[in-house]
């Protein structure tokens, strides 16, 4: 573990990514305590430009709502959706991939055809359809993002398991009569974890983008403010009030960038070949 942090902190992109993520998480956790007012509250005159009043530093939107408060509360929704939907996707994707790779044969065929079924449908289109059918709410959004993002996980895990399956220590475990689930959980998966973690960090970024796109199209949860919603709502008045779209847009950009940098850092830190070369 110490080793991991050491190499993680050595990669500059990883450090920058971690700082951004920590910042975003602390904003999401503690921001609402500093701004107890609902971001939906009309606090000032509409279309107030940014940096004119210290109480609404980033200006107000078309209804006079505080853009800064919206960004803080939006962080919560964006991060929550990103993390939870990724977690759900892992919970679905990892077992399917592991079983396909370990058992092979017909099980593998069946599970992989099932996975490909999801992969052939453009993921964003599928997400839109699902949210539209289920009615936009935070649950339907998390569910549909998870549903479109698990197939790559399954395929990655399957590939890893397939190669680990033939290693001597796995065969030794088989010979000593360990149960299949023991072998998968104790022998194979821990060793397949590194690429999955890297993938997961990128999936969080993708999920944030997906949620933003859905909200942008008006398919967000109407009861929760999110960055994508703010961009979508401000888009039509961008000629009069650029700040309504630009600030949440920048927030999306930075947080997605941060997660990508973390992914890169993790890749460097977790890849034994790369880290050995470094030393």
């Amino acid at each position, binding site marked *: 573990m110490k080793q991991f942090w050491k190499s993680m902190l050595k990669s500059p992109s990883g450090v920058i990514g971690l700082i951004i993520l920590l910042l975003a998480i602390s904003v999401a956790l503690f921001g609402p305590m500093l701004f107890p007012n609902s971001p939906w509250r009309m606090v000032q005159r509409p279309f107030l430009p940014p940096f004119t009043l210290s109480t609404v530093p980033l200006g107000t939107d078309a209804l006079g709502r505080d853009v800064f408060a919206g960004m803080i509360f939006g962080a919560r929704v964006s991060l929550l959706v990103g993390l939870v939907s990724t977690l759900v996707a892992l919970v679905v994707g990892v077992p399917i991939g592991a079983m396909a790779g370990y058992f092979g044969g017909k099980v593998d065929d069946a599970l992989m055809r099932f996975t490909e079924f999801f992969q052939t449908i453009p993921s964003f289109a599928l997400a839109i359809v699902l949210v539209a059918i289920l009615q936009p709410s935070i649950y339907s959004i998390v569910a549909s993002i998870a549903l479109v993002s698990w197939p790559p996980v399954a395929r990655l895990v399957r590939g890893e398991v397939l190669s680990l399956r033939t290693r001597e220590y796995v065969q030794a475990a088989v010979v000593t009569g360990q149960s299949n689930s023991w072998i998968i959980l104790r022998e194979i998966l821990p060793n397949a974890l590194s690429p999955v973690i890297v993938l997961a960090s990128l999936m969080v970024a993708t999920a944030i983008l997906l949620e933003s796109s859905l909200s942008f199209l*008006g398919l967000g949860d109407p009861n929760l403010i999110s960055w994508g919603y703010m961009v979508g709502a401000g888009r039509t008045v961008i000629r009069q009030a650029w700040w309504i779209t630009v600030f949440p847009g920048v927030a999306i950009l930075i947080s997605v960038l941060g997660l990508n940098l973390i992914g890169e850092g993790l890749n460097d830190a977790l890849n034994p070949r790369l880290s050995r070369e470094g030393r």
Partner: protein
Amino acid sequence: MPKRVLLGLLLACGLAAPALAQEPKTGGVVNAVIQPEPPGLMLAIVQNGPTQMVSGNVFEGLLRYNPKLEPQPELAESWSVSEDAKTYTFKLRKGVTWHDGKPFTAADVLFSIEMLKQTHARARTNLAQVDKIEAPDDHTVVFTLKQPFGPFLGIFEVGSMPMVPKHLYEGTDWKTNAYNNAPIGTGPFMFKEWQKGSFIRLVKNPNYHEKGKPYLDEIYWQIIPDAAARSVAFETGKVDVLPGGSVENFDVPRLSKLKDTCVTGAGWEFFSPLSWLWLNNRQGPLADKRVRQAIMYAIDRDFAKDVIWNGLGKVATGPSASTIKYYTADVPKYPYDPAKAKALLKEAGYKGEKIRMLPLAYGETWQRWGEAVKQNLQDVGMTIETIATDVAGGNQKIGDWDYDIAFTYLYQYGDPALGVGRNYISSNIVKGQVFNNVEGYSNPEIDKLFADGAVATPDSKRKEIYEKAQKILVEDVPVAWMLELQFPTITRCKVKNLITTAIGVNDGFKDAWLDK
């Protein structure tokens, strides 16, 4: 400049224009936006908004209405009412011809009414009180009513009762008649061509029965599907007229600040769209009158007018818009008063039960309005959950009474008997349909007042009845009235006199002229 725009709105520059007493000039082509593309142009069969807007200048009705909704001569040059208010005699204008040269006579009127009864739902309802219609000669039509019907003189507007050429439609299958695609009317403009998805072209009727009119040579109705592109088309000078509702609200201030641009909210008096929140009177906290009153106090309707509708419209005082006959402002008032709303909620024993709200899926403006109202209601302690739906889904939920609060707006057609009563009388509680009494308000006294009001004579009696009905309704708050909407018409100022009637652009090109 903003001040001038505001003044223009207040004075309704279309109305003020005649006072300037400029001599109309003839000639010129006007480009107007039509949104969305109409499904057809045969006004007797298709009554969509855009159809009325284009074809109202091709067809004509017996009467026209000024912004006060007083009848004006159109195809009928004069009319009289019998003592018992049951017989209406119309004298038709002489020398009127159809666009194909055939003369317009009383036989066309009789035929049109027979046809409209089958093709036009609202005309059928409007004509329900008519016992018989006769034509003693070619230029006289006599309507005999079963019983006096107060709003009768209000049903002859071109969109409600367009005159159809008998010689082209009699004995044919109306729905497939070839003239549906190239309509023949008596109006100031003749249909010339329709490039689907691109434009509809009308040309001047040289034989129009009012000498000297119309002044314009041609009208191009440009079809531009994207709202932003419509704004740009006006900015770049491709179009000169943006009828109400053809651009998004937030573009109105920007466009109205452009050079030589006039904005008016006039021209909707006949429709008088009134917006309100359906409140489901049947179940939950909203079944309590005090909660419904609290909603009225809790919502900042001036904010909605000034911010969401960019200052257009008027805060509604009750079930009738102020432009509707027998409107009274002498009703209980509901100013923005969150403290009073909280007190009423407390008194009613409301404890934060969840209330579902359906915004109207008509675009940005309505979405923002939903958010603002939700915030207003939450500020007084109500728990509101917004349900996102599309138009069809929302209509279905409302029709099935599966909602607590829902946004809507409806046309009022000038008279409480035509457009107001339908939303409050208990015989109109019909599940599965929208735009009736979906709130489920049932009050025998109101039922009786609206039943009496439609047939009462004389006018003063109707006034008394409807004023009483308004007071009762405003006290009971069956729905939460929001704003009298105004859909601003944006024009290049050189287009003069376009909006002079209660239906505005729909029949306005007759008097319009271009100041070159």
